């Protein structure tokens, strides 16, 4: 730790921020230059992050434990009326690991984007997307926000970064803001809005949680809060409420049920963005937040807060996986897979398998980014076709993409020795030791996962090419650019350029090897590091391990029987139960439910409020005015303009007043 000073930590988010400023203000128009600036900044951040991690690892290997592995600094951002609003940085194993994940994935995604973010001009030649500079500016801004998020040592800063990554997600989902679909399906701008609002709903919970925490503990800083909780300043039901509030924020960001609805639509953004934000990093921020505040969750009475996390996570894992089974859009499959896997992580944290959850986050970041980038490569090669029903047989034309994606799929399915196996197995082991119901749910979700991911692989890469048939009456596909021609058959499909393939290959290697860091062969080094060197006494649960491998094999085999060997008809279930298929394909009508709520409850309330405003509130104002006006209008008829009338009134009044004054018995 001594070799690394906290001062350098500031550089990590600062460099991407500078890249953002420079690109946004100056170099926006020079596409290539903007990309290089952005990539340069992220490389520099990666170097600093690696240095930070290295120093921690060195300390860890030198048997430093606990607080020795934590360094933080807190400054006052501003103070108002005696409350100091802090800003600060923390570096500990968890943050260091996240720093590496964020910077590496961001770097690879940016490299990939260089190839991906092109459009065909009128002559069929490739040229840079008109928003190329803007794209890299947003990516840099996102990277900065995400780095601030993982570096934050207090709730305020995490909330700030939380909102900023939400903003970047908004901007990047809506990157092709001018695109709409003739069939009225959700456009990028609508998807961006939906994502922003859904996550903000969760942020409200986070905000309330933060308010409760500050009110009771008097601090925003994680370590102070933990101490205050230990000291009993925040305990009991209020602590549970506060932590559920915090978890709500995570539910929104990590797309957990019931706020998961935004993530599939977020696939309207460019595919590399989906890989970076909606697979590897931002959506994992919710998991990160729960991990970061794990001790607080654990301190709630009877671990109620953790139980909520576990059940929501478990349910989401299964729920989303079931939707992954039926989707036809390759990116949608991956989106539901992401939701499902995030649920897995939440479940892992919830059952107390803290290190396993974080480990799965780490592994998932790589293989899911790979799956997305691979999908991007397919989509790019297939002239921006995303519907798997119009693919098939692409493996011959896209060998590198296929192989790397199979690597990632094996990792996702949880087959040893790929990375996903090690972390998923630990989560399931944790669940098995805690709650059998969660274990069953998790296993079922694993079966689904293995099935749907290989369904996607087989549909995409094997069999006959179905793109040229055009026999589908489905709408024109939610391709990224909206102007990808479907011309040409299989021959027109070429492997993506090298700049896109290199990230795929690197990620494939990571998918293969990242799991070993936490495998029993290496003494669960990763977990031990994340737990700050705490003694781990995990026994290997061989039952769980073997059954999870079996489940994965069964899932993959089933997928191959249905979609590769075609011995089982694909409509085996959907034919006798069409309503079930339709119901799942319709995302369990959750979107319709939300739409109904927005249209009828929210907008209905708003319309009622407006009606109330115009007719009641303003009505009263105008009524007061017209009553006074009416009085005036009536009384003015007294003003006949005829002098005798006035004279009469004057004298009559004078007589009455005189009479009162003379005979009225005035006290004098």
């Amino acid at each position, binding site marked *: 730790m001594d070799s690394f000073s906290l001062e350098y930590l500031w550089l990590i988010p600062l460099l991407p921020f500078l890249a953002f400023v420079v690109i946004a203000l100056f170099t926006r128009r020079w596409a290539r230059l903007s990309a290089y600036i952005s990539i340069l900044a992220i490389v520099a951040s990666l170097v600093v992050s690696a240095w930070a991690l290295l120093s921690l690892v060195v300390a860890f290997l030198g048997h430093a434990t606990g607080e020795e592995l934590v360094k933080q600094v807190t400054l006052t*951002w*501003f*103070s*108002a*009326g*005696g*409350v100091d*609003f802090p800003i600060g940085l923390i570096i500990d194993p968890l943050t260091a690991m996240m720093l590496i994940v964020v910077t590496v994935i961001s770097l690879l995604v940016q490299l990939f984007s260089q190839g991906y973010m092109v459009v065909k001009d009128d002559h069929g030649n490739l040229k840079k997307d008109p928003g190329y500079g803007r794209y890299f500016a947003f990516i840099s801004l996102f990277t900065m926000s995400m780095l601030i998020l993982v570096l934050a040592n207090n709730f*305020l800063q995490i*909330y*700030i*970064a939380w*909102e*900023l990554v939400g*903003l970047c997600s*908004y901007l990047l989902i*809506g990157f092709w*803001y*001018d*695109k*709409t679909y003739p069939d009225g399906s959700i*456009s*990028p*701008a*609508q998807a*961006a*809005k939906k994502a*922003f*609002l859904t996550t*903000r*709903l969760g942020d*409200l919970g986070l*905000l*309330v949680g933060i*308010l*409760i925490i*500050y*009110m009771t503990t008097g601090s925003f800083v994680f370590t102070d809060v933990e101490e205050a909780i230990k000291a009993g300043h925040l305990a009991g039901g209020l602590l549970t409420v506060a932590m559920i509030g915090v978890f709500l924020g995570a539910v929104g960001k990590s797309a957990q049920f019931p706020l998961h609805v935004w993530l599939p639509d977020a696939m309207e953004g460019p595919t590399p963005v989906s890989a970076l934000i909606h697979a590897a990093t931002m959506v994992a921020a919710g998991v990160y937040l729960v991990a970061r505040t794990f001790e607080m969750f654990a301190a709630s009475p009877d671990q109620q807060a953790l139980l909520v996390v576990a059940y929501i996570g478990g349910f989401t894992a299964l729920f989303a996986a079931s939707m992954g089974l039926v989707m036809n859009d390759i990116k949608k499959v991956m989106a539901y897979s992401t939701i499902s896997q995030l649920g897995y992580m939440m479940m892992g944290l919830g059952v107390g398998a803290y290190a396993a959850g974080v480990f799965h986050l780490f592994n998932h970041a790589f293989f899911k980014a790979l799956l997305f980038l691979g999908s991007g490569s397919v989509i790019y090669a297939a002239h921006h076709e995303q519907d798997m029903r119009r693919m098939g047989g692409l493996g011959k034309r896209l060998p590198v993409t296929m192989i790397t994606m199979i690597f990632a799929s094996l990792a996702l399915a949880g087959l040893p020795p790929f990375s996903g196996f090690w972390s998923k197995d630990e989560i399931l082991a944790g669940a098995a030791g805690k709650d059998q119901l969660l274990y069953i749910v998790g296993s079922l979700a694993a079966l689904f996962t293995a099935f749907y991911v290989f369904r996607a692989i087989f549909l995409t890469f094997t069999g006959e090419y179905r793109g040229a048939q055009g026999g589908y009456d489905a709408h024109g596909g939610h391709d990224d650019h909206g102007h990808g021609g479907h011309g040409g058959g299989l021959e027109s499909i070429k492997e993506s350029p090298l700049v896109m393939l290199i990230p795929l290959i690197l990620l494939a290697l990571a998918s293969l090897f990242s799991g070993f860091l936490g495998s029993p062969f290496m003494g669960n080094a990763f977990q031990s590091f994340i737990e700050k060197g705490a003694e781990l006494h995990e026994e290997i649960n061989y039952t769980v391990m073997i059954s999870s491998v079996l489940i994965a094999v069964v899932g993959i085999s089933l997928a191959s029987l249905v979609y590769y060997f075609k011995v089982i008809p694909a409509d085996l279930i959907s034919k006798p139960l069409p309503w079930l298929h339709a119901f799942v394909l319709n995302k369990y009508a959750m979107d319709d439910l939300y739409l109904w709520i927005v249209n009828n409850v*929210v*907008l209905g*309330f*708003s*319309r009622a*409020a*407006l009606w109330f*405003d115009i007719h009641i*509130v*303003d009505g*009263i*104002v105008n009524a007061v*005015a017209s009553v006074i006006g009416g009085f005036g209008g009536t009384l003015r008829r007294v003003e006949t303009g005829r002098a005798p009338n006035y004279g009469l009134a004057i004298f009559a009044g004078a007589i009455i007043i005189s009479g009162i004054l003379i005979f009225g018995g005035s006290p004098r």
Partner: protein
Amino acid sequence: MNPGYLTLIVFVPLLGAIVTALMPKDNIRAIRFSAAGFSFIALVLSAIVWIRYDTALAGMQFVEQATWIPSLGIKYFMGVDGLSLPMVFLTTLLTFLAVLASWNIKLRPKLYFSLLLLLEMGIAGVFTSLDLLLFFLFWEVELIPMYLLIVIWGGQRREYAAIKFVLYTLAGSALMLAGILALYFYADPIVSGRTFDMLELAKTNYTAQYGAAFSSVVFFLLLIGFVIKLPSFPFHTWLPDAHVEAPTAVSVILAGVLLKMGGYAIIRINASILPQALQDWSYLLAGLAVVSVIYGAATSMVQNDMKKMVAYSSVSHMGYVLLGIAALTPTSMNGAVLQMFTHGTITGMLFLLVGVVYDKAHTRLISEFGGLAKRMPLYAALFVTAGLASLGLPGLSGFVAEFTVFVGSYLNPNMQLFTIIAAAGIVITAGYITWMLQRVFFGPLRFGDAIKESEHIQDVRGLEVVPLVTLLAIIIAVGVYPSLVTDLINTGVAPVMTQFVKAGL
């Protein structure tokens, strides 16, 4: 050394109004430059005051005092502290930007600019005067130019809107005057003396001397005038009308600083002089605040007119000010003042932006636009940024203020429920702003039938950009480094809070 900065800030605009009015009618350049020049002088003066204000010393500074009507104890008494200084700066800044924003006004420019400067004088006077009667005088002075600005340069229903604005405000003023006189006549002759001096009156403990009923009555006499101005539900309906009819620059000033007079006055007068009554009625105020927040946001949601949407959003955002005041913690009070400042800049910017598109398209209806980002990228970027600031995105000033209000209000155990409900407002706010952005700026380029010459709709450039970028710079600066303002506001809030300590609350 004090060369009478505050008097200069207040009366330089008056001089400017006179000089502008004396300019030859056909020399439009001279008129514009005179108005811009004088408002710029005022801006520079207020900036100097801000820079030279000693936050270590705190309290009232740049004080000027002279007897005016000695037999009644009326003084010409001016001074600024951490409460009023941001407001004074905002006033001069927004007036200067308003002059720039109405650079190309066609109809009777001479009168227009004169009235704008007169308006500045009235508002700056309200924020600087420390004598209640002087305060009241400026409070009323501001009405006339505002009325004329709406009624001459306004839209379709300008007469209705203008007369509604004036009558509504005057109704409040009448009650306010009664309240001021009650404070004057019932002031403790020993500790306060017979005076309209706010600082002296604050020494009288009205509740202790005359009971809670008396102080409550006076409190409400004063409060009604202020919540009308703020405006808070249910006294807000003049605001959308006035905004929709007022010309752009006037809307900017109306939303930017005129509303702040209400919040400022509640803190300066109700909180400082009648702390006990404010405490007694804090539930009511918080209730009004919460209703304003949610209700204003909900009504913004279903507006088709962008300007009306921004106007209703002001009701919502000023609800946070009221909540901050009602919660009665130093932090919430600080947040309230900060929210006033930031709302002035953000909403000012939003009104300027709406005005820009109205100038080009002659309509402000959301349904008439689509995909404007394609045609006007810079404009869209500015609008999106301002919208995000309005919905409280961190890094921009709106977040800082709202978060401070939330934290401060939540610290008062009685206000927690109110705080949570008000916090829900940020979701609704995000809803209507992102929805509006999506409909107006995103999707394919589209113009409705009401827009005749859509080729005139081009991106902002030249002079249009200057006020927008200026405000944006302030929004970002405060959002990133709030201490710029909060250090100052802390010094202003502290004495108000000692009033509560003194009252034993």
